[in-house]
């Protein structure tokens, strides 16, 4: 019998192949996908989170574990869907129009994948229209925008207005971030949330989407 603890431990160690293998094996043995997810993968990510807080693991290692999570999720998803589990939140993520800085956004994207969100990464220099399209076409439940420059920050406001104009503001949450962004700015432009860094973004996203 595949031990859930073994899956968790290997996830913490960043062992992609091992975790995929164990996940597949667990499913073949009859373990429910939900159990593998909760007691294997999420449990592992919890340990990662604790070690990160304690300065024992750092970002590259955390991101590696998140990637392992993503790979294992691909194996689990069909089973989860079959069992009627609620699909994971879809997040449209991008750096706003006129801005090509991407590292912060990429960090957040990988971290989000690490907790099971489906991330639609729109890339950089993303126009308000493309954010709107992502919500419409992919049914994204949250739009997350990044900007590094004070000159491109205003496009966060433009995007929120575009969502409003498209009648989508009610059904989608908006979150903003970036070195020059602040809670105050987020409030000013009517964004639903702001987070100062990727780790805080996870907590905020869960809160906004009412996920435990």
């Amino acid at each position, binding site marked *: 019998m595949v031990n859930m603890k073994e899956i968790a431990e290997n996830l913490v160690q960043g062992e992609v192949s091992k975790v995929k293998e164990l996940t597949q094996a667990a499913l073949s043995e009859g373990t429910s996908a939900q159990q593998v997810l909760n007691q294997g993968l999420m449990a592992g990510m919890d340990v990662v989170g604790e070690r*990160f807080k304690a*300065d024992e693991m*750092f*970002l*590259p290692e955390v991101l590696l574990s998140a990637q392992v999570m993503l790979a294992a999720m691909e194996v689990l998803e069909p089973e989860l869907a079959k069992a009627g589990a609620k699909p994971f939140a879809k997040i449209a993520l991008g750096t706003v129009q006129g801005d*090509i*800085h991407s*590292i*912060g956004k990429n*960090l957040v994207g990988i971290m989000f994948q690490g907790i099971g969100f489906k991330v639609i990464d729109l890339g950089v220099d993303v126009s308000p229209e493309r954010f709107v399209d992502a919500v419409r076409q992919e049914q994204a439940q949250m739009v997350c925008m990044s900007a590094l420059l*004070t*000159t491109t920050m*205003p496009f966060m406001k433009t995007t929120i207005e575009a969502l409003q104009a498209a009648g989508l503001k009610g059904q989608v949450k908006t979150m903003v971030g970036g*070195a*020059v962004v602040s809670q105050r700015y987020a409030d000013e432009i009517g964004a639903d949330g702001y987070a100062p*860094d*990727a780790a805080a973004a996870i907590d905020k996203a869960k809160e906004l989407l009412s996920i435990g």
Partner: protein
Amino acid sequence: MEITKSNFKAYATPQFKMLSDEQIYEIHLATLEVLERTGVEVFDEEGVDLLASAGSHVEGKARVRIPSYLVEDALKSAPKRVTLASRDGRRKVLLEGTKVYFGTGSDCPHILDSFTGERRLSTKEDVEKAALICDSLPNIDFFMSLGLVSDVPGAVSDRHQFQAMLLNTTKPIIFTAHDETGMADIIEMAAVAVGGREQLRGNPCIGLYAEPSTPLQHSKAAVRKLLLAAQEGIPVVYTPCPLAGGTAPATLAGTLVMDNAEVLSGLVMSQLRQKGAPFILGGVVTVMDMKTAIIAYGAPELHMLSAALAEIAHYYRLPMFSTAGCSDAKVMDQQAAIESAFSCLMAALSGANLVHDVGYLESALTGSYEMLVMTNEVIAMVKRIMRGIEVNEESLALDVIDKVGPGGNFLLEEHTLHHFRKEQWHPELMDRNNYEKWRQAGGKTLGQRTTEKVKRILAEYHPEPLSPEKLKQIDAIIARAGARKE
């Protein structure tokens, strides 16, 4: 007795080396390889055309691979010295060799208010005050805005910011601009101040600050400004900000290669646009903190990498833009002091030419007058260290040693009276009193004494004003820009 010696004064100042000559050459070669193998993305048509016509290989619309000979050509044609003048035309800042000049950094969204202690958004008035303070400080040689003007219409904030600088200091200004049109207005404003375009070209009191986007991307805005600077003969500081482990390799040498590849591809475009265009190699090079993901301005790696870049620039015999006097601290505390001191000393030892970011706190997000004024004193100490120890017949002092003899003292000796002022640096902010005296004077910390000095400067110092004529013309340029934007 006259002593004849050759080469005796060769090492009168401290010597410092971060990289060996061979290491520098390896980094140079690796840079050439990156430009040929990986190339860069240039998001501007004119930039791509210039590179393509000169022989670069273009893939798609923006991916350009630059052959080594183009880089060598650019290194040869770029001027080995760039001189910045004060607003009244005096050629004060000679960016050449290992001459070192210090100045502030640009565009901090917040300022630490010296009167309320509040961290708040920067205003135009904050930039005016920063300019005034820098104008008064003897160890600050050039000025960058420190604050980012937030209380004016966004589209023309760069013109307002420049006006705030231009009117409150005569020291050379390194400016930022939103885009080409902002830059054109700023050049015009500077020309008004100095008495015409030709005056400005001959004795530039301004330099443009522009940045590629690491890794290996040149945004449209950056290239437009770079090329305009080349055309107008405005010195440009082209500064990548690679973060080791984030936007650049985790290994420091790899980060140097990344920075160098971006800078040199910028240099090639600049020289292709205009041979001999004044160009200053730069870099704000450091690590991405692997806990908090910030750009670590106080990291020891920043000082090391900056020093290495200076040495690479010396190898090219081109002027160099470095980083010091900055910190990740949120307030002007002990961390700020440590990080400021380390960085300033390393920058001076490395012989970097234009050393910026004095006054930066919170990893470039908050400007602080206290940090600026404290660092002015740090620089004074650094300058003393850099003057070195003179060893000659007079300084070896054999005659006075013999005269005073065992058990005497030197206080009233003519030799002491003659030399002590020059040999010994006297502090202004650093406290050397004994405990009782310090207590009687209020028992103040460095931070408190620095705040007092900031307030004193703001109350008592007056920069040289421009004529009402010129002030009106400058106002008109901004008004015109505002009208255009509507």
